[in-house]
């Protein structure tokens, strides 16, 4: 599977617009996007006003409207940045030579670390965008399709199993997502990495079986405690 080809097919940017870490907003545009994410995570997208964005970003309304047509376009831009980061991180650990389960674990670890380092963006992308019903939803959905195809690859590795429904990868991804969102809503975004073993289990069990999935989860647990892992 060519993951970068897949990302391109979904018309997703990958790592093009990586914001500095820790997130220091240099430009007005970046400051606006950060303010948008923060307001989304505290009061929700619907309730967010242009003033909620301009004030913390330290820009005038006129500046806002020079850069963005409206609130929706700003939201969409913030989503694009988040997705570019996420895809960039996943591409960084992707290699066709890696065993599938190892790749799932590494990708999940990268994804959780990214979310933990940007809690406001995490909340915007995983809580607000899925329910926003506009172009931002499409971005969210296309990002999810890329992750899903990564999981679906487990189907032919090690065995093709016809009795397993084609939705198994999608269901596993939704299960992992719901756990992550629960942690974010509970205000524990900084502890997202702890979910890695559980996420490795749910995403690998449909294809590897319980015994091997549990072994993979235990291995993921070891990477949590190992320094720099």
């Amino acid at each position, binding site marked *: 599977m060519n993951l970068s080809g897949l990302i391109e097919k979904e018309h997703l940017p990958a790592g093009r617009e990586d914001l500095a870490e820790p997130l220091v907003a240099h430009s007005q545009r970046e400051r606006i996007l950060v303010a948008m994410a923060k307001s989304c995570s*505290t*009061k*929700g997208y*619907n*309730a967010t006003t242009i003033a909620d964005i301009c004030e913390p970003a330290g820009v005038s309304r006129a500046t806002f409207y020079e850069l963005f047509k409206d609130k929706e376009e700003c939201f969409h831009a913030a989503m694009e940045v988040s997705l570019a980061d996420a895809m960039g991180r996943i591409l960084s650990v992707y290699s066709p030579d890696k065993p599938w389960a190892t790749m799932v674990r590494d990708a999940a670890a990268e994804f959780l670390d990214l979310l933990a380092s940007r809690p406001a963006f995490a909340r915007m992308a995983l*809580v607000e965008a*899925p*329910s*926003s*019903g506009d172009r931002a939803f499409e971005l969210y959905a296309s990002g999810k399709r890329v992750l899903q195809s990564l999981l679906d690859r487990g189907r032919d590795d090690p065995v093709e*199993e016809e*009795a*397993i*429904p084609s*939705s*198994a990868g*999608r*269901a*596993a*991804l*939704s*299960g*992992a*997502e*719901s*756990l992550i969102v*629960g942690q974010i*809503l509970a205000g524990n975004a900084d502890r997202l990495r702890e*979910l890695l*073993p*559980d*996420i490795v*289990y*749910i995403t690998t*069990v*449909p*294809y590897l*079986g*319980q015994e091997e999935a*549990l072994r993979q*989860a235990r291995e993921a647990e070891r990477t949590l405690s190992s320094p720099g892992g």
Partner: protein
Amino acid sequence: MERAGVGDRWRPPRGRHRLPPEIVARSQRKRLLEAAVRVVAEKGYGAMTIGDLTKAAGVSRTTFYELFEDKEACFLAAYDNAVEMLVRRVIKAYETQQAWPDRAAAGLAALLETLAEEPALARLSLIDVGRAGPAAQRRYRNAIQRLTPLFDDGRDFAPGGRGLPANTSRMAIGGVTGLIADELVAGRADQLPGLLSDVLFATLVPYIGPDAAAREVERLTR
């Protein structure tokens, strides 16, 4: 005495035909909750106004504000109502069976059928709740977690159930609701009952593994 009684009927006491105020309020509240489900399905939570609600329910604005603080309060009450009904139906169907896979299949079938019959309610419970702000999102998560004990039964049923990851049930529920939400977003609420084998597999696989899950799905959805 008798004549006095007849006389009473000729001069009905004031308010005799009126219902007690608490019954009126209850019926107005019920109409507003039903209106919220319909209006949200038609135009979404964001675009819904108090005017839409009072018009659809046939009550005045004053009445609305006597019963609810704001639009969000009315939406949340409608939401609680909907979830209560769904959870009750699922548990009732679940309890008609004995073995856990059979119970899971019965509960999931009831869930899918109820959502297919009432697509407006389905959208409200699973999709629009995310749009109504942080309070509604927390409400949604709490509601969903009420199904956790039904999934936790899978731990007792599965041979190695105790050794499974701590969040297994939460993730299994997330898988089921995710598959259902995908159908609703795609506008296929009426086809939800056909999703039974997929959601049943997603429910069983973390507890009993893919081979046993596939066999049980085959047996229970034949």
